[in-house]
């Protein structure tokens, strides 16, 4: 018996090595009972102190959601999700009291959790040059750098707060890019979303710091349904970073987020994600189901939206950050590295919809699959009949590490205008033996050689990230590939 225990202990240590964010914080929580019905939605809305129109909108979304089936077209294989077996609201107790008006202290456990993740949430310890909104399960627990932002007239807060403080802005833009009728998961999110970030950059302002949200799932059996809304007014610029982690558990947890970006005339939004949800163990037990709808709308002339993502976690990833290029001369970019190992499955890519004249888009997708994982790029480029002089360039490369993994590329390209130029290229191959040999002949061991080659493979994407994030992403990749090479 004692031997058994010892075994489990060493095993846990090994797993810990692989996923260092897998701890659980013991926090007193305020939570909704399991299940989804109108009462739960009312409960969430009440907890958030939302205006009446918001509740109505949630209800409409819920009614629509009830009529829909889960989409199953992606190359993903997972068991039926029981939507009644999920808790739709869970918040650290001290926080939810804060929302009743009293200014509560931050639960020390929550604070410790974020410290462990390397995200200081107190103003005095804040990160240089990065304003952080920290979201713990269903609520935003802290937002840093407030005064600097206020100075420039930038609004950066949790979406619940925005709904109370800036209802006009939220009402104007929420759901205008991803309506609640968009898809199954987006409508589920619209009905039950709990928190997320809201940012508004006024006309002509270049946001002086990076905005960032850190999402943490902690509670058991809860789903995280966050909603992020970023509006860049005319001629403004903002760079936004998003990070995600969750504890290691044997059960699957659902994460269904919606992100909406709106760029008006000459505005630019850079959105970067490092997604490192818990991906389950080597046998594919546990892990986060990540069903995310992200979409940017270049609403004005010469607007630019750029997505950069490093998808390194989650058992299931279903995510297609897209750009609707409506304003003439607007630009959409998508840079992605998706790495899957063990039994992870990722079906990710982008959509570029060219509506305006002279719109441009670039897609760079790098997929790495190892072990028994499945990695799919799925994308769409569409040139509308009236969109003149549009240009798209896509490149999708997949690297295979190990003989049991699979890599798929499924791009959809549609052009209806004779002035369009669309180019797509994709390759799938094993890690280049000649490159490995060359590096090894310089006296570098195999594992480092592989890391070097993989890093070179992803370079085009990593160079889009802010430096600290690029370093983090490189480390993450090394960690994921450790032991996958045989």
């Amino acid at each position: 018996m004692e031997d058994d225990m010892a075994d489990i202990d060493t095993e846990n240590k090994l797993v810990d090595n692989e996923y260092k964010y897998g701890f659980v914080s013991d926090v007193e929580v305020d939570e909704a009972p399991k299940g989804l019905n109108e009462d739960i939605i009312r409960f969430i809305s009440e907890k958030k102190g939302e205006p009446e129109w918001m509740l109505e909108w949630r209800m409409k979304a819920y009614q629509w959601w009830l009529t829909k089936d889960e989409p199953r077209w992606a190359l993903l294989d997972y068991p039926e999700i029981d939507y009644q077996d999920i808790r739709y609201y869970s918040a650290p107790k001290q926080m939810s009291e804060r929302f009743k008006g009293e200014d509560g202290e931050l639960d020390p456990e929550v604070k410790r959790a974020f410290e462990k993740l390397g995200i200081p949430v107190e103003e005095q310890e804040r990160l240089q040059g990065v304003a952080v909104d920290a979201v713990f399960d269903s609520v935003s627990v802290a937002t840093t750098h407030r005064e600097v932002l206020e100075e420039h007239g930038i609004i950066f807060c949790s979406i619940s707060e925005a709904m109370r403080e800036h209802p006009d802005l939220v009402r104007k833009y929420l759901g205008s890019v991803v309506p609640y009728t968009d898809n199954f998961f987006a409508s589920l999110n619209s009905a039950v979303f709990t928190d997320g970030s809201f940012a508004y950059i006024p006309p002509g302002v270049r946001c002086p710091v990076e905005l960032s949200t850190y999402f943490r799932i902690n509670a058991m059996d809860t789903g995280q349904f966050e909603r992020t809304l970023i509006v860049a007014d005319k001629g403004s610029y903002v760079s936004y970073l998003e990070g995600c982690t969750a504890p290691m558990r044997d059960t699957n947890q659902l994460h269904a987020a919606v992100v909406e970006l709106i760029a008006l005339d000459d505005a630019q939004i850079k959105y970067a994600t490092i997604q490192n949800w818990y991906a389950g163990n080597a046998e594919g037990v546990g892990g986060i189901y990540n069903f995310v709808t992200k979409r940017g709308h270049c609403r004005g002339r010469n607007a630019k939206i750029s997505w950069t993502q490093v998808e390194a976690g989650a058992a299931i990833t279903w995510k297609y950050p897209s750009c609707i290029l409506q304003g003439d001369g607007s630009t959409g970019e998508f840079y992605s590295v998706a790495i899957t190992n063990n039994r992870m499955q990722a079906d990710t890519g982008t959509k570029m919809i060219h509506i305006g004249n002279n719109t441009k888009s670039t897609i760079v997708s790098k997929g790495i699959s190892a072990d028994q994982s499945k990695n799919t790029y799925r994308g769409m480029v569409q040139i509308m009949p009236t969109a003149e002089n549009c240009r798209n360039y896509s490149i999708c490369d997949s690297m295979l590490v190990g003989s049991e993994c699979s890599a798929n590329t499924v791009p959809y390209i549609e052009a209806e205008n004779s002035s369009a130029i669309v180019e797509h290229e994709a390759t799938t191959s094993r890690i280049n033996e000649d490159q490995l040999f060359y590096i090894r002949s310089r006296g570098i061991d195999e594992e480092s050689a592989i890391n070097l080659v993989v890093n070179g493979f992803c370079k085009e994407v990593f160079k889009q990230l802010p430096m600290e994030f690029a370093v983090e992403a490189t480390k993450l990749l090394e960690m994921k590939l450790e032991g996958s090479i045989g």
Partner: protein
Amino acid sequence: MSTIDLAPERAVDTVVGPFDEEAFNACGKGEPSLLRAKREQGFHVYKNLPAPTSFDEEWRRTNPRLFPFADFRAGGALPRIEPDDPGEHDEDFDVVVNVGNDGYSINDRTGAIRGGQVMVLPLAEASESCADLIEPYLNGQALPSDWDKFVALNDAFWNFGLFIYVPPGVELEKGIHLKYSMSGDGNALVPQVLIVLGEQSQASILESMSSPDDASCLSIATKEIYLQPAARLTFVTNQEWGRGACQIANDMAMVDSDAQIDWITLNFGTGVSKLKLGCDVCGSGACAELDGLFFCNEKQHIDQKTLQIHSAPHTYSRLLYKGAVQDEGHSVYQGVIQARPGAVKVDAYQTNNNLVLSNGAKADTIPGLLIDADDLKCSHGATIGNLDPDQVFYMRSRGLAEVDARRLLMRGFYDEVADRIPYAWVRDQVHRHVDARLGV
């Protein structure tokens, strides 16, 4: 992709146009039991599969309603008739098979059939006179394992069946011309063609289809090709159905060790087409070279899907499909390279180039890679654009009229594939088609 889910109302309809139980009972009376069993199995699958709707992924870009199935009769088996007077270009072939409204004829021009160099005979006859030879190929091994509604329909209702066999080691000098010319008598044409090349044999086959533009015709075809080790086949399909015709075709080839298929498909005809063409390179050293040309103008709609399936290690495939759309034409190209588990040392390439020549015309391209093995190289490239204005300008600055400049560029675009066609007169036809559509 997030806007896809529109909760399709599943069609409960399983009958396509005239192809019902009654029509089935009238099919293939007195056939040998081998074929009868295949028909019955086909019908069983057919009646249990729902008719496709535009909600099915496969049919999303080509609405099945574009096919006026109900305007046609299932049509009885085509009778065999005596060969007519020789047609144009017949001298290029050993055997000419003419298929028309009244029946089909097999013309053994050079005596290759009599001399035992090749067998070209109706399926029914083959399954009696050489049952042992044909039986292994009657289970549809080359076809994808998930049943297609129209493959099943063809199996149940085919009204013209042909078996072509080249014995091991034989090099057929001139090859075979399989020529369909219909004039629209209201009967659907449902051909099933089975081609087998024995070990180390070599042959070339031309398949051509034509009908007057004002005749409404429907063709639902299946073709299976089996190449035994080290066999080599050049297959050219010259599809020139008239604008009133619509066709559905499922063509698959299985290419065994060290065998090679060169398969060129020319699609300039029909009002509406839905084609699936695939190769399974299933033996070490097998090679498939697939080329295609297409052009959709006016209201033409051509939907092509290609499969390059690698189920064995050390296999090679290359694909190049080029086409243009003009006016309200709509082309759909979907290509899949699939490497099955264990298919290492595979080299597969797929290119699809499209020209959109006028606003309102539409080109969809969906190249795809489905890779389940690691030590390989698979890639694809797809482009959509127009003729390069710099190149047009260059030629005009040399004194060429714009229309001639465009014609030359178009010819250059198409010749990359057309040059591989072994028949000079078919190459000329390609040029004529392109010139006519550019208004030269």
